[in-house]
């Protein structure tokens, strides 16, 4: 039944306004950030705050593992 439900979802993912936002990054990304790898320009410039939080999350994992496994 689950397969039926999943199969019935037909996402039509091409929204005309959707493309506008993507095209902004594709056209102006290099000019704005200076990096020709657009994934890096989003990862480290447009959404660098996410990356900061992500490194903190990884650090928490390290602290957690060493803390949980340290005593006794």
């Amino acid at each position: 039944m689950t397969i039926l439900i999943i199969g019935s979802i037909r996402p039509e993912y091409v929204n005309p306004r959707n493309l506008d936002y993507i095209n902004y990054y594709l056209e102006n990304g290099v000019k704005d950030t200076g990096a020709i790898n657009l994934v890096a320009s989003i990862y480290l410039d447009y959404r660098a705050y996410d990356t900061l939080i992500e490194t903190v999350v990884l650090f928490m994992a390290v602290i957690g593992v060493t803390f949980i496994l340290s005593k006794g």
Partner: protein
Amino acid sequence: MLNHLPILIIIFPLSIAFIILLFKKYIIALSIFSIVFSLASLLKFAPSVYKGQIISYHLGGWPAPLGVSLLIDNLSFFFALTVLLIGMMVIIYSIPDKKYNHNYYFLLLILLSSMVGTIFTADIFNMYILYDLVAIATYLLIAYYQQGVALKASFNYLLMSAVGLSLFLLGVGSLYAMSGTLHIASISEQLPEIFAHNPQIIIMSLVLAITSMGIKMAMVPLHGWLPDAHSLAPSPVSAILSGVVVKVGLYCLIRLIFGLFSTEKILINIGSHYILMIFGTITLLFGAMMAFTQIDLKRMLAYSTINQIGLILIGLGINIHSGFQGALFHVLNHALLKSALFFCAGIIILQSGKRKIHDFAGYGEKNPLVAFCFVVLSLGVIGIPPMNGFVSKFLICLGAIEAGYSILALVIVFASLITAAYYFRVIQIFYSEPIQSNSNLSNIDVAENSLFWDKFFRLWPIYILTGFSLMLGILPSLGLSLVRPAVKILLLNIIK
């Protein structure tokens, strides 16, 4: 420097946490200083926020739909104030315990700053990642004492909330696919168009968001993690979990339902407030029933949290002005009351060395002040007139009757009766004669000899929180003036 304050509120405790971990000196002073800094700079926004201004801050200088941006309006100001206030009290309360080292304060500061970040953010993916940070800090804090039971509770919570966060990410993905942006306001602008074109995706993402946040705030079919996690954590951690962490899930739900899926047509079509109302009723009754059957004090308080969450959900679900007002006011009240109750439970369990309710016989004579505070606070949770809980419960009941759901008002009153029953049971045991008074006495003598400052730091947070709740109960207009502008935002979104 002044217009960078929104990000500094988040970043300052975060960096202080790492400095604490690095140097391991002046731990308490630094953590209190950082929270006071955040609180002060938050209060600096109060005048402009209450004039109805919306303060937004664009990280990296990219305007709103491009990059991540922060947003402070009345709603987020109110929730952030609650979080920081309770966080401050929790830090003060945990000063005397020598078991809490730099790791504890590090985790606490990360938890607080990430919660404030979750509240301030205006970007759904950023909300997801910050919520993950909150969740990981919570797992580690629950497992802090490393007893087997707490580890099991922590693992249980990890599984449920990881699945919930993945569901949330799936919802974020489908919203992104339809709208091409992650900024809440710009998704909300495009939503009617998408809804006309492809309604089932929107309904799917709404259901995913409600499910994931329902796991976070223990809506009843998804509540399985809460009683274990909240009762087995260290007492100050239970206070912050019950008082605040659950409320952050509630905030995200409010943001998503009333900020994102909030166009008139969609609300009518989906009827998301009916979902809230039905689940709220189930949560209210189930939490009350289960709390009545518990014999462990902290476990009873944890189920009482489920009960009160149900009340807040009903208040949001009846979709009328006084209902919103009551619900938001109850968020503040419940944060104050429940964290103070957990502080009391921590002191009681520490002094008697036992967790079961029937072991506390005669406690009221041995430590009258704490027992008195417990009584006053539980009166607040039940909703007896001089306390703040009464005002919010009354407002929610009023809203239910105004909106035409009189039966809901009856249900709330009935649940309050059950709440009264299980709290009065504890109070009665407090003031009853101990059956055999042999082991309790010696422990309490040890506690009497403890240092003056230990007692000072343990007791004053309780007194302050009790005083706050009494003050809000006697002068409800004070709290309501805090809440009213935030309600305006919810109403605006619906009318628009």
